């Protein structure tokens, strides 16, 4: 599993621009790009009311579980999963091997429209990630020069 490439300013800007455009066109309230392992990569929109870290972990789990169910039914791919709420709904779309796009939107919006605009965002994000993956890894970040603190006690018990 190759995993997510290192992201630089240009990548994050493109991701954010794709999400902003998606939010503007679809009138959704928030959009997140997450890694399929659970970590949150980028978030835009009204995220202050959202525990985005937890939503990301849960969405990654839900998508993986649904994908596995689909495989058991003989399906070879899974493009979206949709959770219909009373006030807020959620669409999770597959971006590429590593990423998912989560769109949170008011329940009165049509999921079809959100899915349509999400498709454009997915393509833009996937193209940028493809570009990032082709970049020579390690050339933009000197890990050796990272100033690692004393890691023997990163986590300490409160007295």
């Amino acid at each position, binding site marked *: *599993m190759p*995993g*997510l490439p*290192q*992201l*630089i*300013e240009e*990548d*994050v*800007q493109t991701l954010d621009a794709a999400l902003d455009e998606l939010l503007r066109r679809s009138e959704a309230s928030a959009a997140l790009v997450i*890694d*399929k*392992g*659970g*970590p949150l*990569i980028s978030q835009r929109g009204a995220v202050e009311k959202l*525990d985005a*870290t*937890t939503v990301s*972990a*849960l969405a*990654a*789990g839900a998508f*993986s*579980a649904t994908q*596995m169910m689909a495989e058991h039914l003989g399906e070879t791919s899974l493009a979206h999963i949709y959770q219909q709420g009373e006030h807020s709904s959620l669409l999770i779309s597959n971006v590429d091997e590593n990423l998912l796009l989560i769109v949170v939107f008011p329940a009165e919006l049509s999921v079809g429209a959100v899915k349509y605009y999400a498709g454009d965002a997915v393509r833009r994000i996937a193209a940028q990630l493809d570009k990032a993956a082709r970049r*020579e*890894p*390690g*050339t*933009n*970040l*000197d*890990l*050796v020069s*990272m*100033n*690692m*603190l004393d*890691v*023997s*006690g*990163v*986590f*300490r*018990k*409160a*007295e």
Partner: protein
Amino acid sequence: MAIINQANKELQVKIVYYGPGKGGKTTNLEQVHSHVGNVQEKGKLVSLATSSDRTLFFDFLPIEAMAIKGFKTKFQLYTVPGQVIYNMTRQLVLRGVDGIIFVADSQYEKMAENVESFQNLEDNLKTLKLDLAAIPYVLQYNKRDLPNVAPVEYLEFLLNNREVQVPSFTSVASQCEGVFESLNMITRMLLNKFINEGARKPA
């Protein structure tokens, strides 16, 4: 695989607690959540559990701590469900794993389950095209306060009898003994590995 976001100066790592059912994985996370004192930010502990409090999918605890100056280091701690029937779920949770804490149950009658779970970990990693030898992990021998525990040497013989031995810790997770020691060790191992691997990449 750790996620590096240079734009936000952010590093995200995923640590998974693995081991047999009722071995103390969730208790480890609960203790970290209750007692951790020096972190930048501690998220909510999310448990996807059955009505009888057994882990159904995973427990999840996000913590942001200072490990590298100038870089936000976000730790995502997960547990897997230990019960044998939830193997698919364990595979899903292992996706993107950076470090593993294997929580073994020290009671004599649990030895077969410990060995089976360890074998299952290796098998599941292989399914994900990962090799345990390439992933930092530590062993935690839990429930040392119970009367029927096997000697540490025996647990070492069963679980740590390899060419390269990994660090192991005794613990009583319910009393928070050995919990932080294991977590700090795996953190140290995976950050060291991460930086060493960076050093080997061409400039």
